[in-house]
Structures are given as structure tokens and as C-alpha cells.
């Protein structure tokens, strides 16, 4: 039966595709978990670490809107501290290493934030 050959080829292709991540992992070796490098001595970011991990994108988005659309630059953090809302001035003073800090997780999960469509990427040695 000629058609059976076609069916089995199709089935094999399907199984191969369905297991693509397994092949890729076998080829590239198990990926290591990213470890964003923190170079600052400060103990805490503008908000607690857990909160920053989860919601940094929303915080940055809110900062952008407040600064660009309303011209306000002062952020009142949950613990009562005030911070100047500025990506390059505030964030990057502690995290100047975009490649080792931001990109570590973003690349790992193929997240492409559009920060750098307006901001100039920091020049780093890679």
C-alpha cells in the first residue's frame, strides 16, 4: 500500500516536530538559568526586589508616562522614599550593565522591551 508510506512519513515528521525542544536541548545542552548581575552596593531598588521582579515593566511604563506626558519627575516609593524618575539617571546608575543585567533575562525569554527605541543604549564592552 503506497499510501501507508506517506502516512508513516507524515507521522514521523509530526512526532519529530512535536519533540523539537528535546532535540534542541540535546544539541545545545541544557540551558543555564540566567543570573542578572547586580553591580550596585545599594541594598534595595526603588521598591522591594520581589515587586521589582514582577512589575518592573509597569513601573517603568508608569514613569515614562508621568515624565513625558505630565512633566513630573518625582516618584514616591512605597516605603516613603522619593526617587527621580529617570531610566538613565536612576535605574542605570545602579544597573549600568544592560547586557549583563537587563538582557540576561530578556534574552532568555525572548522579551524585547521597547525602552531602547527612544533611549540610547549604554555603550558597553561585551
Amino acid at each position, binding site marked *: 500500500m503506497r499510501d501507508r508510506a506517506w*502516512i508513516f512519513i507524515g507521522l514521523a515528521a*509530526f512526532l519529530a516536530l*512535536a519533540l*523539537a525542544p528535546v532535540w534542541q536541548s540535546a544539541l545545545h545542552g*541544557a540551558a543555564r538559568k540566567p543570573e542578572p548581575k547586580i553591580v550596585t552596593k545599594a541594598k534595595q531598588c526603588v521598591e522591594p526586589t520581589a515587586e521589582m521582579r514582577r512589575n518592573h515593566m509597569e513601573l517603568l511604563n508608569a514613569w515614562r508616562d508621568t515624565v513625558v506626558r505630565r512633566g513630573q519627575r518625582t516618584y514616591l516609593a512605597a516605603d516613603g522614599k522619593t526617587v527621580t524618575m529617570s531610566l538613565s539617571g536612576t535605574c542605570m546608575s545602579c544597573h549600568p550593565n544592560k547586557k549583563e543585567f537587563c538582557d540576561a533575562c530578556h534574552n*532568555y*525569554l525572548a522579551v524585547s522591551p521597547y525602552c531602547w527605541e527612544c533611549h540610547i543604549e549604554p555603550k558597553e564592552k561585551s
Partner: protein
Amino acid sequence: MRVVWSLLLVGVLALIAFFGAQAGGQALFGIVLPYLAMAVFLVGVAARVVGWARSTVPFRIPTTCGQERSLPWIKPASLDNPSTGLGAAARVLLEVFTFRSLFRNNRSELREGGRFTFSADKWLWAAALAFHYSFLVVFLRHYRFFAEPVPAVVAWIQGLDGFFQVGLPVVYVSDIVLVAALGYLLWRRLADARLRYISLHADYFPLALILGVALSGVLLRYFSKADIVAVKELAIGLVSFHPAVPKGIDPLVFVHIFLVSVLLTYFPFSKLVHMAGVFLSPTRNLANDNRMHRHVNPWNPPIVGHTYAEWEQEFHDKLVASGIPLDKE
């Protein structure tokens, strides 16, 4: 109402995973069941396909939906009535990728005075296409959790899917379309008395289940903002066969994974095997060329009809009387 049972069942499954994961069942919901589910899915689908392949195709029975290839000056419908294997393959692929048969759908209604009217009805086609394609995109996007480095094409799909850059994390069009299409497909089963009448548990359950998968995913991405670095660690652990559950995974992640595991397990035993079956439909994947090339039936029964000799013997005198020529005088 059958739909209630399906929704309830999916709800209960979600709760089981939610509380089970928190009660120490993380390895069960994150490792054991996903592995089992994947194994059942792959073996199950393969067994179904092999089962179909083992059945023979004794006759060449395409449903012809257009002009046959006959005289050279008559234009044949090379897709709807293919006369070559290539045409039949194209017919199947178009069926798979564009749901062409469903596109023909129309609605017949009986009007006053016993008159039928036929109107185009593309809603089912549109919703089915929207559902399948958005589900495909969502599926492909998830590849980012299973591969390191993430292939460029996945990033490209994500970029396209999040093209509108609305919200943070960016809202994916596919998520909205998927939930909306599922909602419509579920709604139409309930709203149309005819469909309600024919719908089984097996029709509501997959819709409810996929809806559960989609909604838990939406919650994870847009609301609970799970720690996806940890999720990817889990996923990579699974595909590299070094499974481990990292700390700090949101219990909702286990709900999502568990519902997907249920879907994978359920898949080979359900109507969802139409995914593979559509390729094998003898009314679609065969060319209408039976008069050009003989199709062989592997079990062609050795049947001989009433032979001429027997017939002539029975009607001999009548044949002679009416002057019809005989083999034996």
C-alpha cells in the same frame, strides 16, 4: 445542560491543581503528569494514525466538487475535482490551512409559503479559522519556554502578535482572538437549538478545557505575572530530561500546566484527532482519476456474477424465439 458539567469539571480540575501544587504536589503537577501526558499524547496519536493506516482504502471515492477532467476543451476544477495526486494533495492542504469546505457553508431557511432561501454563512468558518490559527500562534509562542536560545522565528511571531504594543506586558492579539473565538464556538452550541441537540459532553469538554488553558494563561501573563524565568527553568528541565521544580513558581502555573496535561491526555481519545484525520479523508485526499488509472482493492473479493453462459441456458428458448444471437446454438 451538558455544558455546565464540562465547565464544572474544568473548574474542579483547575482547583485540584491549584491546591494540589500548594500541598506539596509540585513535582506531580510540574513533572510527573506533564511527562505522562506527553507520552500518552504522542503514543496515542501515533496509535490512532497507525490504526487508520492499517484500514484499507478499497475504493477511490473522492467527493467531486467541480468539473471532472474529461475533454480537452472543458476546464477541469483541478482543486475541487483533482485528476492528479498533486491536485489532491493541494486540495487537502487547502482544506487544512483554509478550511475550504467550511467556507462553502450556507444557511437554508424555510420561508412563508414553503420557499427555501440560502444565504452565505461564514461565521462558523471565520470562528473556526480564528480559533485554530490563534491557538497555533499561542502554541508556537510557547516555544520560548522550551528552547534556549529562542529561535528567531519565535521572537518574530511574538513581535507580530504584539504589534499593537498595547498594555504591559504587551497584549497579544492571539490571546484575545483565541478567547473570543472559543467563546463564540461555545455560545453557538448553546444558542442554536439544533446544535444544542447534537452536542455531546465530548463537544463541550474540549471547548471548556481549552478555554481553561487560555484563561489561566491570560491570568499568568497579564495579571499574576508569574516568574517566567523559573517557569522556563522548569520547562527546560523537562525537555532536557533533568526535571526539577524551581522555587517560587506561582500555583496558577500548575493549574495551566495541569489543564494542558489533561488536554494532551484527552486528545488521542477524542474527536480532537481530527487534527491528524483530516489528512487521511478518502473523500478529499484521492484524485478522481479512477477511469484513467485502476485503483487496486487489496481484498477484492473473488465474486463472479451470473455468467453469460448460465443466463443463456436459462433463457435459451426465448432467445431463440426472438432471434437474439446465441453463443451455443
